[in-house]
Structure formats: C-alpha cells, structure tokens
C-alpha cells in the first residue's frame, strides 16, 4: 500500500517534469527558433537560401558570409560608432540619475513632493510629439549630425531616477551622519561613502542603457546626416536596402550586430532581470 503510493507519486512527479520540459522546449523553439534559423542561414553559402523547400538547417558550415560582409561593410567603424554612443549614453544616465535620485531618497527639503509629482506626470503623459521637438531642440543647439545629439535626449530617464531612488533608500542613513561628524562635505559623502554601496543599482541602470543605446536605430538616423556615423542597428537597415539580393551577407551582418548584446545579456542576466523585476515594486 505504502509502497505503491510512493511509486505512483514518483510517476506523477516524472510525468509532471516531462510535460513541463516538453512545454518549455516547444516555447523555446518558438522564441529562439528565428535566431537559430538566422544563425543557420548565415553559415550557408548564399545560393542555398532561396532553394525550395527553404533551407532550414545548413548542409555544411562555412564562414564565408561573415568574412565577406565584414570586408564589405566596414564593421569596425559601425561597431566603434555604436560603442561611442552607448558609452556616452550609459555615463550620462548613471551620473545624472544618481545625482537626481540621491536627494529624493535621503534629503528633506521643500519642493521634494513637487519634483516627485513632476517626474511621475511624465510617465503618465505620453509624448508622441517628443521626437519632433527633440529634433528642433537638437538643431537649435547645433548638435545635428553629432553623437551628442544622438545621446542627449535620452541622457536621463525618469525610470532610472526611480530605480536609483529605490536603491538609495536601502542605504542606512547613519553613514551620512557619520560622514558629517567627520566634517565631510555632502558631495564627498555621496561619492566616497554612499556611491560604493549602490553599485548593484548602478549596474542595473548601466545594463538597461547599454541595451537601449546599442539597439537604438531611428533617432540616430534622424539626427545623423552622415551614414558613416551610424550605429550598428541603423547601419543594418542600410545593409538591408543595399544588398537585399545577398541574403547570406545580411544574415551574417545581422548576427554580428546581435551577438555582442546577447553575450552581454547572458553574462549579466541575473542582475538585469532582478532590476527589471525590482523596478515595478518601487
């Protein structure tokens, strides 16, 4: 009696595992399938691609597409453009959102609620016209066709400010008092005592912004007149327009643009996902 109940329980557990894994794998095929197919296409020589039935799995693996598109597309240039834009964007966001969030979390001052209300209202009021006004503003500052023009409209976000405020709230306030006792200035307390304690929050903002700036394509196209300054995602639309006949090249080019960000994500997913999840609790 007891023995059979144990074994039925085990069978139940095994079937539950089995069903869960089958569902997980089916879903993985749905979510990852398009990327795997792209990878497969990028590893096939071009003539295979338009065959009917369509080539899904590569018959042999060959890096020709990568070599050729790399030589043709000046990838180093586009990659360095992307890196410059991403670095600028990340630095601006980290510095500005930390500076803005710190007093909101720790200081008592007049106008604090006003600032809060203003910030929240931007999240509720959508700005469909923002891009047009950003364009006019960037032109007025004579920042058209410059990396700064690409980065500045997204230099700080309300979302990041809230995320950092949440992190600062977790820092014990005795630290600030003890710093004051020793006669340190507020700024020194902030830089030397508080900032080291909020590294996880900074990492989350950094990651979110790396993804955002790396993938940004439309605004750079609007601001930059010179395609030589385009970041990767924008250059990709360019590639697609020019070489639409050479499918394998575009597939390889797309893989080259996608891989760095996927690798960054895979190595940092824990912090990244915690940050996304933590953001709505605040």
């Amino acid at each position: 009696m007891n023995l059979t109940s144990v074994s039925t329980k085990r069978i139940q557990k095994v079937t539950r595992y089995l069903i869960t894994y089958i569902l997980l794998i089916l879903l993985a095929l749905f979510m990852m399938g398009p990327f795997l197919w792209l990878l497969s296409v990028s590893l096939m020589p071009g003539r295979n691609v338009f065959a009917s039935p369509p080539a899904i799995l590569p018959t042999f693996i060959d890096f020709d597409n990568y070599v050729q598109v790399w030589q043709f597309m000046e990838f180093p240039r586009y990659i360095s453009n992307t890196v410059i834009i991403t670095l600028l964007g990340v630095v601006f966001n980290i510095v500005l959102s930390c500076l803005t969030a710190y007093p909101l979390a720790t200081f008592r001052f007049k106008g604090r609620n006003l600032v809060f209300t203003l910030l929240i209202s931007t999240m509720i009021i959508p700005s469909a016209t923002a891009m047009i006004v950003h364009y006019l503003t960037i032109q007025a500052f004579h920042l058209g066709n410059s990396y700064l023009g690409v980065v500045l409209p997204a230099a700080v976000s309300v979302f990041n400010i809230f995320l950092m405020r949440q992190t600062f709230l977790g820092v014990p306030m005795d630290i600030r008092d003890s710093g004051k006792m020793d006669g340190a200035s507020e700024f020194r307390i902030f830089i030397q005592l508080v900032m080291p304690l909020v590294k996880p929050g900074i990492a989350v903002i950094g990651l979110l912004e790396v993804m955002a700036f790396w993938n940004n394509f439309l605004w750079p196209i609007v601001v930059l007149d010179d395609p030589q300054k385009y970041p990767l995602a924008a250059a990709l639309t360019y590639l697609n327009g020019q070489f639409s006949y050479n499918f394998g090249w575009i597939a390889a080019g797309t893989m080259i643009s996608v891989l760095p960000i996927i690798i960054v994500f895979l190595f940092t997913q824990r912090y990244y996902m915690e940050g996304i999840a933590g953001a709505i609790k605040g």
Partner: protein
Amino acid sequence: MKKAMRSESFTAWAFMAPGLLFLAVFTFWPIIYGIPLSLTDYSVITETNYVGLSNFTRAFQDHNFMISLWNSLVYVLVVPVIQIVSILMAILVNSRIPGVKMFRAAYYIPVVTSMVAVALIWSWLLGNNGVVNYLLMQAGIISEQVSWLSTSSTALYVLMFITMWKGLGYYMMLYLAGLQGIPADLYEAARVDGAGPLKLIVHVTIPLLRPHILFCTLISVMGAIRVFDEVYILTKGGPGTSTLTSSVYIFQKGLEQFNFGYASALGLIVSVLVGALSVLVFRLNRKGGVNSY
C-alpha cells in the same frame, strides 16, 4: 534647525540641478512646446503663422489620420493576448525544475535584441518562399503561399504578432516577479481545500497578480499606441494604409514632410487618447476591487 534644513534644501537642489535641467529640456519642454507648436503652420521652409485651431479641424477631416487612429486602436487588441500568454509563460518558468533559468534567459533574448534585427528576421521568415509559408503548407493549414506583409488583410495582424513575440519575455519577467511574491502557503491552503491546478490559477494566482496585470496592461497599451519601429521598418504603413498607425503617420507628417505644426497637433490628439485609455485601464481595474496602486 531651520538653517540646517535650508542648507540641506540648497544641497538637494544642487545635486538635482543637472538631471532636472536635462529633463526640463528633453522631457518637459517637448510636452509643453508641442501645444503652441500645434497652433502654427511651422514647417521650416515657409514663414510661420499662427493658425489657431485649424490644425485640429484639419486633423479630424484627415481621412488618413482617422485610419491611422483606427489602426492604432486595432493594435491595442494585442494587449490582452500578451497578458494571457506571458502569464502562462511566467507560470511555466516558475516551476522549480533543473535548467529552468536557462529557458527564462532564452525567452528573454528577443527583448534585448534590436527591433531592426527582429524585424529583418521575421520579414524573411514571412516572405513568399519563407519558412513560415513552407511550414504552414506542409501542415496543410494554407494551400498556397501568402504574402503576409504585403497583403492588406494580414499585414497589421502580422505586425501585431511580431510586437507580441518580441515583448513576451519582458512581460513574462514582470509576472514572474509577481508570482515569486505570492506566499507558497496560499497555494497549500487552496490545495488542501481541494483546488485543482486550474482553480489555483483562477482563484489564487490571477487575483494576487492584479497589481502586476494593471501595470503590464498600462505599459502595453501605451506601447501598442506608440508602436513605431516594427511598422516603420517592415511596411512603412502599407500596403495602402493598412498598417498606417498613428505614430507612423505623425512621423511622416513631421520628420519626413516637415509639417511640424500639423504633426504636433496630431501628437497632442494621440496623447489625449493615450491618457484617456490609461485612465480607462485604471478604472476597469479599480472595479475589480483592487486599489493597491
């Protein structure tokens, strides 16, 4: 004490000044400046005149704008689908079985990938000789090739599908965070009362996820109305006006034809619409008896 507070106040504003300056220029200013701009015929090329509300009356007689608003509203139908699928996904990846974290990461990869890449991949998969047509024909679901993105009756729904596919992982993570906040003994108690898996979902999971459902519904409604990248890359609003969404139309009027005044008026109308929809989502949720947000 008062003096200390005043100096603290000064320091606080000094800290916030750079950030607020940027927000003022790039977040508050566009919201405010859009209003006077919408009352002019500003277009860079010709002299700017004050035109009163004529941009707005023109908008409501603009057939294409009305179509774009309608398409944007149709696009919102993607919202409930996203919630249902991503909640089910979250329940699935909340299982405590080995390797589940790997699957979570896999489902999240479309989220971190650029929309350009995602759109390109799907445009190939959905092409005439593409994999999707091949698989559907093999399965006997369709009898001949369909040009998914260049057929008026399918293009909008295909775009909605791509939007959903790219966003699922994001919403899954938000719901997963919600699920992990539900105490296990609630499930235990319900199980002791004889609830099966379906009843557990309906009576325990969904009610406790309500705040998350509200949040995710809100951001996905705003996202659906603002949708731009995938439409712009894949169809530019076509064929005809079948995928012309309001953001694409505003972009065309503003940054392609440089009718900044008119585009600002359109933007304002859409903003009011999004605001109203957000309030509606809040109201609907309030009726359910949850006011935790």
